[in-house]
Each structure stands twice: as structure tokens, then as C-alpha cells.
């Protein structure tokens, strides 16, 4: 009954419109309520003593002096918390053969990375707690270390997990088609080994938690800066033995997460236990150094890959081996192998070839855990594939655009299954390639490049096609036994004044979830957006759902809101029809007014229906029970994932004397299906690209030989800043998914997926006049100068 989703000219047509997010002003005005702003009565503060050793036995811990310090309420070690918290293991059933050691909030007898929390102090202020930390003595006995990938795999080398014979967490293999045959008959083969450094999320708001256990009620409330309150409600309930209904997790304003705040952290679990032990609220906010040594890191891959082509440049096969090191444990509950798994499955995704083989080996080492961070696996798969495609183009003598145009899956050839097993509903590589060519004025850039080269200025142009995984179904976590929902729920109510309150399970971390949900509700019901209030992030009031991660907020949360709103609209029109003595089908809603569907003549406002339903139900026909609240759940069906696609382009300049890279301009053509709010989509793309450029050029967690993170501060760990970032030019192609009415797919990771691949290709393009190539990310001055043999 609603008008077509794309028409922007009718009233309340918010889908497809750039409307500002309702919460932006509040946050800008400093009225955000973050966990760190929270001060509860009788609240205490936790601080953690951390291991200075990457691998050591804990011989003894002396906390006597710390306990005596005035203002200290509790000093807890591993054994204290092990009494009340059951251990967790970061494995999933569908990753066959995967292992990981059980974890506890604080270790009992061994530390496995430098920075691991060992002792907790709870005091009347953070400063007192920190003073007390200085009074604790821990006696360690160093154990042999495993720091890099090679030593982790060395036969007879040290093994991190007692009882294991090696440091392997997980192995996987894919083998489709006739790979050996394809390579044997190929006209061209290109091969390279790539390395990808570790980096981390560096959210503006660090991890923050306030746990508040009320022994009288037997109830636990946790204010937690997380993307996934429901997941943590479940985990706190099960690991501390409190009924789920008595555990409340509140995630209000979040200052960025990027996947980092999805995971169980030892300190966070400990804080819950400390509150239970004390019967008082306990707060912990990670400081920046603590964030660097205890937030999850990402990437850390070494990939050897080769690609076979025929004489005309048709890709025939790929053969890939990914080694990835994940720290001493696999993260809980989402594991640390998803990234590697996605690396080997996203390889070659834009292209048509059928022969594919991959091996994945996930390895333990004495570093902090790695896990899901924005664009999980994508940048690695994309960089490897796209660099090989460029190498192949050079070998065959094709332009980078031509070789891609020749090999991408045709836009009219869907559905398709990739050689790695992914099923694609409908993608638009050809349209995106064509659009990018115009958008970046490719021919103009090439002419300028040639011109400048004569004057000793080395510009590079890089492009990278990508496929992004969005809208995950239970195939992602549910099938592996994780209690992580892939469905979402919404409860919509008409207020007595005729506005709408929407409680929904997707969460807001600054990306505008609440804005798009209010757009969808307003659009689908036919009311002004400012009359829709969206409430998220409180397990006590919002229905259980997956929340926001992996690019699912718009696609799944949005569809949930859409379907719920349509149900509410039916209910409203039913009551309206009774009051107006019409058929519901003869009525519609525009701008908060019930109108005649045909003439659009106003009949009665929603506010009047609400007034009658709530206060004068006696005037409704007998037997009528107005239902102005609906609850609705939606779980994705059809394709296990809604894949999206796009292509990025980059123009940059390499200073061949200093090794410095200046990105001049970045371009993206992206297809996320139905665009709900173009402004927010573009923000996601820009933000994602900036994170990708950070990874490409600046960000790396660097370790010493003894496993110490050597750049754990924002002075030494370089995040991309405005001065170094280029203008980013954006264009769209829209291929909605037919799996939902809304047609939206995800967009949050697309920018990050290909930005580093683009830069890698562009830098190598700039270096073509020299006998120098780069195959390692981040691309730093030292790597470029070494490749150029400048020193």
C-alpha cells in the first residue's frame, strides 16, 4: 500500500534522503552520556597491574602493602575471580578442529602477553588504585617466547599452550576446480608474498564499563560501551550464574567501536566479578596505553599467492596460503579465525575464474589477541587479489581497467557462486568500473602522470575492486554454537499524542543507526521524522537482537523496522476504519493524518486515533481492542549474506628521495543496494576509507623481539589525520537486494575493504620507472627507500 520506496517527492519520503541525524546536535553540544560520564552512588574504581613480560610464570604475588593503603577496598588476583566466574573458550563448532585454551578474568599462574592484566585493585578513586598498583610485587619467571610467525611455526620451538604439540589454532583448506592443471597450462603466472602488519581500532572513547551488582536483588546491571549488549547479557549471565532476566546491559552513547567493542575482555569480565565480590558499583575505563596493549588488534597476515592467466589476460586460477598470528588465545565469543577465514574466501571475489585453492593457518603467539575489526579480512583479500591483477596486467600488457573489465563477473550474469563458495545475488562490477573511469578522469590522470614523470615527479594511480560481506545470517555465528543473534527485534508504540516510539535491538555507535531507523519508520508510517523517537541499547527495554556489527544495522535492523512499521500501520488503519466507517484499504497515512487513499483528502489525525484508543475506548465498537503497540522480529532468509561491491581509485605522489607518500585524491564507486540516507552512507565510506588509508600508510602495532609493544601511544602509533587525508570523491550504483522489502545492504566496511589495496597499487604504479616493488602494508618511508635502494 505504500508508495514506491524511491519516490522522494511525496510527503514523509525519508528513504533515500539526506537528513541529519537526530542525535548529532546533542553529541556536539557535549550532552552525550558515555559510560565514562557515569557516576553511581557508592561507586568504586578499578585499576589493573599488567604483566611486563610477554610470556612468564607467575611465581608469587604480594599484595599486602596495596591492601593496607587507605582507600583501597579490594585487591583481587586470578584465584579470587576464578571462584565466581566460569572459564571461557574462544572456539566455534563450525571451525572444525579449532583449539584455544580456556580463559579467566585474571591469570592463575602464567601470563601470555605483555600488558595482560594480572592483579585488580578497587579503590575510592582511580588515582588511589594506581598508587596501590605500585605497591604490589609480582615475581615472574620468564618462559620462552613466541613473537613472530616464523618462530611460532618452527619445529621444536616454544609452545604457548601446555598440552599442545604446536602453536596451531586452526587450519582450513579450500580446493575447487583444477588448480594445478590451470597453472600448468597458464600463459602467465604472477606470484608474490605479502605481509600485513597489526593495527588496532583506536576509538575516541576507550573501552569503558561500570558493573553494578545488587546482592539484595541478585541483579546485575552493567553499563558497557559495547556494540552488542545482548551478547554480553547472555555471557555475564552464564559465566557468573545469574539468571539472564536479572542481568541488564546498558549501552548508551558509544564513542566509536569498529568491531573492537564486540569482544570479551579480561578486564571487563573482571570488573563484573569485582562488583559481585564488593556488592558495589565498580568502574573501569581503559586509558590509551591500556587500550593499545589490551584492545584487540587486527590483521597480522602473511600471504603467498599466485594467479594464473591465459595469453589474453583471462584469469584462470588462484592459489593462496594465508598465515595469520592471533595472540595467545582466540577471542571469545566470536573467535580470532573469522578474519583468516574471510581472507581465503574473499580472494578473487570480483572475478569469474573457477579454479581456486587456499590454505589457512592460524597461529598462536605471545601478543594481545587479534579479532574482528572493521572490514574483517577484506583488506587483505582485496590487496592480494588486486595487486596480483595489476602485476598480471603489466605482464600481459593490459591497462588495469581493461584487465578488470575483461575478468569481472558480468552485471547480467547473476546469481553466481564464487570459487571460494560464496553465493552472490546481484553485483555491479561492470557499472562501477565504468563509473570510476569517468569519475577519476582516468585518461587525464595518466596523461598528467606521464608529463610529470619527465620532470622527476612520480605519481601513481591505483584501482581496486572489492566485494563486501553484509547482512550475515545465522551461517556466520549461530551455526557455530555462538549465542549471537542474526535477527533483530523492534517494538513500536503510538504515544497518546500520536507520535511513535521505536525500541529496536540494533545499536548506535556514532554511525547514525538511530537516524536511519527513524527515517524508515517515518517513511513507512507516513509521519514526520521528528515524531519518531528511537531507543536503543538497553537489554531491559529493547528486544533481543544481533545489534550492530558486520554491516547489519541498515540491512537487517532496517528491514525489522520496516516490517514492524507496516504492522503498526495496519493496526492504526484498522482502528481508523472503524471510526470512519471505511475499509482499511481505502485509507492511508500522510504526515500524521489518516487520508483517503485515492483522493488524499484528510480524514482524521493519528493523534485523534490515539486519544480515542487510549482514553475513550468506550466509543469504539464493542469487541474492539486497539493495538497501538506492535512487536516484530525479522531474521534474514534467502542468501546467507548480502554481498555488496564497488571499486576504489587513488591518485598519489611518491617522493622517491624521502619515501614519503602523499595521497592526492581518492575515489569510490560503491553499491550498497538501497541507500536510506545518502549523507550517512557517504560518511561511512569516507570514514572507512580514512581507516583504510591509515592502515595502508601509517598504522602498525610494532613489537620488540621480547614481545613488547613499542609504540603504544598516540605519539608513536600514527593514526591518519586531516592534514594527510585527501579529498574523497564518491559515486553510487544501486542494486537493492530482493531478499528484503527495503533492499538495503551494508556499507560500513566498504571504504576500509579496498583503500589499502588501492594505495598499494598506486605506490607500485608510481615506482614502475624504478626496479622496485612494495608488497607490505603499511607502506612506510623505510620500505619505499629500501625498495629503491636509497640507503
Amino acid at each position, binding site marked *: 500500500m505504500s508508495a514506491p520506496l524511491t519516490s522522494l517527492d511525496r510527503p514523509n519520503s525519508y528513504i533515500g534522503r539526506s537528513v541529519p541525524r537526530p542525535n548529532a546536535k546533542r553529541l556536539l553540544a557535549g550532552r552525550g552520556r558515555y559510560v*565514562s560520564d557515569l557516576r553511581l552512588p557508592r561507586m568504586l*574504581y578499578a585499576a589493573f597491574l599488567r604483566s611486563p613480560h610477554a610470556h612468564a610464570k607467575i611465581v608469587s604475588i604480594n599484595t599486602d602493602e596495596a591492601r593496607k593503603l587507605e582507600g583501597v577496598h579490594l585487591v583481587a588476583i586470578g584465584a579470587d575471580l576464578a571462584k565466581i566466574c566460569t572459564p571461557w573458550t574462544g572456539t566455534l563448532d563450525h571451525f572444525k578442529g579449532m583449539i584455544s585454551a580456556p580463559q579467566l578474568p585474571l591469570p592463575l599462574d602464567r601470563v601470555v602477553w605483555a600488558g595482560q592484566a594480572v592483579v585488580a585493585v578497587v579503590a*575510592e*578513586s*582511580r*588515582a588511589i588504585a*594506581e*598508587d596501590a598498583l*605500585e605497591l604490589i610485587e609480582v615475581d615472574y619467571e620468564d618462559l620462552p617466547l613466541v613473537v613472530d610467525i616464523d618462530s611460532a611455526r618452527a619445529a621444536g620451538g616454544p609452545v604457548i599452550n601446555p598440552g599442545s604439540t604446536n602453536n596451531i589454532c586452526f587450519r582450513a583448506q579450500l580446493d575447487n576446480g583444477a588448480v594445478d592443471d590451470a597453472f600448468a597450462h597458464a600463459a602467465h603466472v604472477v606470484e608474490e608474498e605479502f605481509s600485513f602488519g597489526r593495527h588496532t581500532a583506536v576509538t575516541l572513547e576507550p573501552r569503558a564499563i561500570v558493573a553494578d551488582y545488587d546482592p539484595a536483588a541478585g541483579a546485575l546491571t552493567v553499563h558497557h560501551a559495547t556494540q552488542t549488549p545482548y551478547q554480553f547479557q547472555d555471557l555475564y549471565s552464564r559465566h557468573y550464574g545469574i539468571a539472564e532476566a536479572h542481568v541488564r546491559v546498558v549501552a548508551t552513547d558509544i564513542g566509536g567501536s569498529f568491531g573492537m567493542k564486540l569482544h570479551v575482555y579480561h578486564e571487563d569480565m573482571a570488573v563484573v566479578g569485582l562488583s559481585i565480590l564488593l556488592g558495589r558499583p565498580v*568502574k573501569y*575505563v581503559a*586509558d590509551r*596505553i591500556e587500550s593499545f596493549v589490551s584492545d584487540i588488534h587486527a590483521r597480522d597476515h602473511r600471504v603467498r599467492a599466485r594467479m594464473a592467466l591465459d595469453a589474453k589476460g583471462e584469469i584462470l586460477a588462484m592459489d593462496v596460503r594465508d598465515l595469520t598470528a592471533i595472540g595467545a588465545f582466540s577471542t571469545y565469543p566470536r573467535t580470532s579465525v573469522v578474519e583468516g577465514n574471510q581472507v581465503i574466501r574473499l580472494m578473487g571475489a570480483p572475478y569469474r575464474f573457477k579454479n581456486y585453492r587456499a590454505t589457512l593457518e592460524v597461529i598462536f603467539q605471545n601478543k594481545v589477541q587479534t579479532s574482528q575489526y572493521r572490514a574483517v579480512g577484506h583488506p587483505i583479500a582485496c590487496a592480494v587479489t588486486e595487486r596480483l591483477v595489476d602485476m598480471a596486467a603489466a605482464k600481459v600488457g593490459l591497462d588495469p581497467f581493461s584487465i578488470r573489465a575483461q575478468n569481472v563477473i558480468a552485471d547480467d550474469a547473476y546469481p553466481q557462486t564464487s570459487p571460494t563458495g560464496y553465493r552472490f545475488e546481484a553485483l555491479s562490477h561492470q557499472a562501477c568500473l565504468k563509473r570510476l573511469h569517468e569519475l577519476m578522469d582516468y585518461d587525464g590522470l595518466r596523461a598528467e602522470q606521464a608529463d610529470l614523470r619527465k620532470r622527476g615527479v612520480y605519481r601513481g594511480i591505483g584501482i581496486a575492486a572489492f566485494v563486501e560481506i553484509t547482512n550475515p545470517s545465522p551461517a556466520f555465528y549461530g551455526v557455530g554454537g555462538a549465542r549471537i543473534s542474526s535477527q533483530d527485534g523492534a517494538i513500536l508504540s503510538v504515544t497518546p499524542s500520536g507520535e511513535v516510539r521505536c525500541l529496536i535491538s540494533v545499536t548506535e555507535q556514532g554511525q547514525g543507526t538511530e537516524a536511519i531507523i527513524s527515517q524508515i519508520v517515518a517513511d513507512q508510517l507516513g509521519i514526520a521524522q521528528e515524531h519518531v523517537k528511537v531507543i536503543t541499547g538497553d537489554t531491559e527495554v529493547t528486544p533481543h537482537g544481533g545489534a550492530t556489527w558486520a554491516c547489519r544495522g541498515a540491512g537487517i535492523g532496517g528491514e525489522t523496522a520496516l516490517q514492524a512499521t507496516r504492522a503498526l500501520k495496519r493496526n492504526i488503519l484498522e482502528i481508523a476504519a472503524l471510526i470512519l466507517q471505511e475499509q482499511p484499504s481505502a485509507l492511508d497515512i500522510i504526515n500524521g493524518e489518516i487520508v483517503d487513499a485515492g483522493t488524499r483528502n484528510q480524514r482524521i489525525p493519528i493523534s485523534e486515533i490515539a486519544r480515542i484508543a487510549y482514553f475513550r475506548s468506550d466509543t469504539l465498537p464493542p469487541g474492539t481492542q486497539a493495538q497501538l503497540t506492535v512487536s516484530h522480529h525479522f531474521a534474514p532468509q534467502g542468501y546467507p549474506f548480502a554481498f555488496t561491491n564497488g571499486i576504489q581509485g587513488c591518485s598519489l605522489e611518491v617522493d622517491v*628521495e*624521502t619515501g*614519503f607518500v602523499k595521497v592526492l585524491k581518492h575515489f569510490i564507486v560503491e553499491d550498497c543496494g538501497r541507500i536510506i540516507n545518502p549523507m550517512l552512507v557517504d560518511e561511512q565510506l569516507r570514514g572507512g576509507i580514512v581507516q583504510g588509508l591509515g592502515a595502508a600508510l*601509517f598504522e602498525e602495532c*610494532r613489537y620488540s623481539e621480547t614481545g613488547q609493544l*613499542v609504540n603504544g601511544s598516540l*605519539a608513536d602509533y*600514527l593514526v591518519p*589525520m586531516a*592534514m*594527510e587525508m585527501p579529498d574523497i570523491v564518491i559515486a553510487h550504483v544501486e542494486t537493492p537486494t530482493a531478499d528484503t522489502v527495503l533492499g538495503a545492504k551494508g556499507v560500513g566496511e566498504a571504504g576500509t575493504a579496498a583503500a589499502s589495496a588501492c594505495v598499494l597499487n598506486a605506490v607500485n604504479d608510481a615506482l614502475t620507472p624504478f626496479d622496485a616493488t612494495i608488497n607490505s602494508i603499511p607502506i*612506510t*618511508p*623505510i620500505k619505499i*627507500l629500501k625498495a629503491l635502494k*636509497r*640507503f
Partner: protein
Amino acid sequence: MDIEETAVKARAFSYFRAATIDQALDAHARAGDDARFIAGGQSLVPALSLRLQAPRLLIDITHIDEMRGVRREGGYLRIGALTRHCEMLSEPLVAEFAPLLHAAAPFVAHPAIRNRGTFGGSVALADPASEFPAMTLALDAEIEIVGPTGRRRVKADDFFLDLFETALQPGELITAIYVPLFKADQRFAFDELARRRGDYAMVGCGIMATCAGDRINDIRISFFSVGNTPTRVKGAEATLIGSSLDAERIAAAQAALEGDLAPPDSDEVPPAMRLHLARVLLGRLLGRLGESA
């Protein structure tokens, strides 16, 4: 946020705001070694928060009038120690009489830090990666020090001794820096190689030259981020004095750096790379200096 809050991580200390130099010196003497002067706090406060330093007493020197202001005094520009980095950009006297400092200032950190950080604090700290200490060397500046034993002026050449070690004794204050006035026959150049604008540089350099037409009569070249102290490269200077800035001389000066510099070991910028970058930077700056003739 108040003291109960989570952000407070420094160890507890006492605070004293000095109104005069005598009060500051006196407070320091009474606290023994366990005191620090605080100016802009842009280096000290991070050190306190990280508990790298934990003095019992902080003596705030920012209200001492005598240490403020920029004025001409004889052949010098007297720059009060409390002059903030941002004033190096806004103060016309600096632009006119110490243009090298004016040119270096935008490279010192970011606006928020430049609004508080002080020239005296930067020189006193003598971070070898800092712009201003190295520029005092290029400028042949003099540092005025006041301490329990009186007042003295130390040439920049004699001030920087080793890593974070200077001629300043514990309990002494820098009150002002005297910079010889910029003259018509002088030329200057400044630049640095930093991966992000505002960061400490991988290599940086400032040059002051006195010229007669094309000929260099005198030149002072000072590098930062190349070793334990800001470093004048006297070998390179010597190759240039008495000649003009042609390609051959520039190459000779670049080559001389090998003898002038002994960059420290570092993963990210190994010594050979730093030396290479210093050569590139020197070549570019001398080229610019030549063009500005």
C-alpha cells in the same frame, strides 16, 4: 571531572604559583631536588600522567612577569622564556628579527599545544627532536639563566650537553633567550621531514647564512632528530663558507654530513636511512637558500 574521577592518574603533588623569580628559586631550594618548574606543561604533564616523573612539588612559573614579552635589546631580540609557541607565529618582532623561529613555529606540534607550550620550556627540556632548541643553535642565540648563584648567559653552542642534559642546573630557570637581530645580508631556511604535520620530525634542519651576493660568508646549519642533542654540522658548514651554492658545493656539504652526524639506532629509521634523509633535506634547503639570493 574532579580528583575522584578516572582520568586522574598522576601521583599526588603540591602546587605553588610563583609571582617572582626569587619566589620560584626559593620554593625549589626548599623542596630539595623533589620539585619541577611547570611552564606550558605540554611535556611535563604527560610525563606526570604516565608517572615517568613524580615530583612532590610543582612550581608554576607562568605568572612571573620578568620572563614574558618579546623586545629589542641592543643587537638582540630578547624573547622571554614564557613566550608561547603560538606567539612565535603572531608576534611581528619575531617575524622581522628572528624569521627562522617564525618559520619553524608552524612545525611545532598542533595549535592546542602551541597555545600553551613555551619557548623557554622547549629549550630547557632540550628534546633532540624539537625544533626550537636546534634553532637556537642555528641562530647563535644566548640563553639567560638565573639560579641560586646568580644570573648568566650561555651560548647555545655551550648549552646542549647530552640527551635531555643541558647547562641548566637543577633549580635554575631560563628567563629569556637572546637572538641576534636578523640582518639584511642574511638568509635562512627551515624544513623538516615528518610523516604527519605536527609530529616530531624524522629529520629537521634550520639554516642561517650571511652572504655577500652569491658568496656565503658565514653559515650555521643545525639539525634536530639526528642524535642525542640538537646538532650543528660543522663539517658541512666548512665546505660552504667562502663559496657559492652551486650543485657541486651542495653535494660536498651533503657528503660532509657523514662525518658530522652519528644517528642513533632505531627500527623505524635506522642510522643509514636518517643520514640519507638528512642529506636529502640539506640538499633541498641549500637549493632553496640559493634560490632566495
